[in-house]
């Protein structure tokens, strides 16, 4: 027979951050991580 799993729906992290007014901070953090990732790879690190 077919088996089922119920799913729970929650606010996404992004929604939570936006509601708390922290999304800009998060976007900045991610942009910073992106930049440092690019710097690392452009220096030849694998």
């Amino acid at each position, binding site marked *: 027979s077919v*088996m089922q*799993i119920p799913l*729970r729906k*929650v606010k996404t*992290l992004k929604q939570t951050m936006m*509601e708390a007014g922290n999304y800009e901070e998060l976007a900045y953090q991610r942009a910073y991580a*992106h930049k440092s990732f690019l710097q690392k790879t452009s220096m030849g690190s694998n």
Partner: protein
Amino acid sequence: DPNEIDELLRNYMDAQYFGVISIGTPAQNFTVIFDTGSSNLWIPSKKCPFYDIACMLHHRYNSGKSSTYKEDGRKMAIQYGTGSMKGFISKDTVCVAGICAEEQPFAEATSEPGLTFIAAKFDGILGMAYPEIAVLGVKPVFNTLIDQKKVPSPVFAFWLNRNPDSELGGEITFGGMDPKRYIEPITWTPVTRKGYWQFKMDKVLGGSSSIGCPNGCQAIADTGTSLIAGPKAQVEQIQKFIGAEPLMKGEYMVQCDKLPTMPDVSFVIAGQTYTLKPHDYVMNITTAGKSICISGFMGIDLPPRVGELWILGDVFIGRYYTAFDFGQDRVGFAQA
């Protein structure tokens, strides 16, 4: 650029639907994202160091307390934009919906990257895409269930509940589809590349005009993200069509009071038209006491080696019941 792939294909910031699985004997329970955009199962390990905050804040698998644990030990890493999820492979009994995959290999994570996983409300990820994209070629749980003949047919299906007042967020069906959750007919389209659940999309329509995917394009059905994403230039056209304005990082917002007058957007797949109304493709978020409405469309250009790809996430799957058939390598959609 792996960061872009992270943003798009593994954007767990936007993941919204979780379920519970158990691992080991006696059962240890974990909350996971059932993710059709990846193919590995990983959960935090009891062996993660105390300074790994993400790991410490979630349920951790303790192999020492499971009589069915078998050592594998291969090291693995999954690269995300903001770092790597690192860990090692173990084998144990993994149960979903009361059916169990014996000696299922999975990753015990000992290091998890970034803010996303610290703040995450889920413990781990259960990948449900093809084994072809599984890191280390580790067999995904559903494929083990098929091989061990634990499911009556090699099909699983997602129903996501769009009623915000309901306790039940949705339902996954293993081994077939649930006729209570969709309206016939279900229209199938073949998988064009075994990796993601990838298929051909014919076009994207605004009213009767083409506003995206002009000559046909490739798309994937991805339950690991909540938005609909596509090539920037084409998505900009859609945003313009619906009257959205840029917010940040490829995202757009619309005026909430314009919702009743906004147009429908349709996706044509295998000759069938799937229409989204404004309340389907707009997400309403209350912040600092006021509502803002985020467009469910997001533009992103993937690197040339990945090529143009549209990602149909929860915004689409919530409106259209989606079935995934390993037996005939096809994806099916029906009205939820």
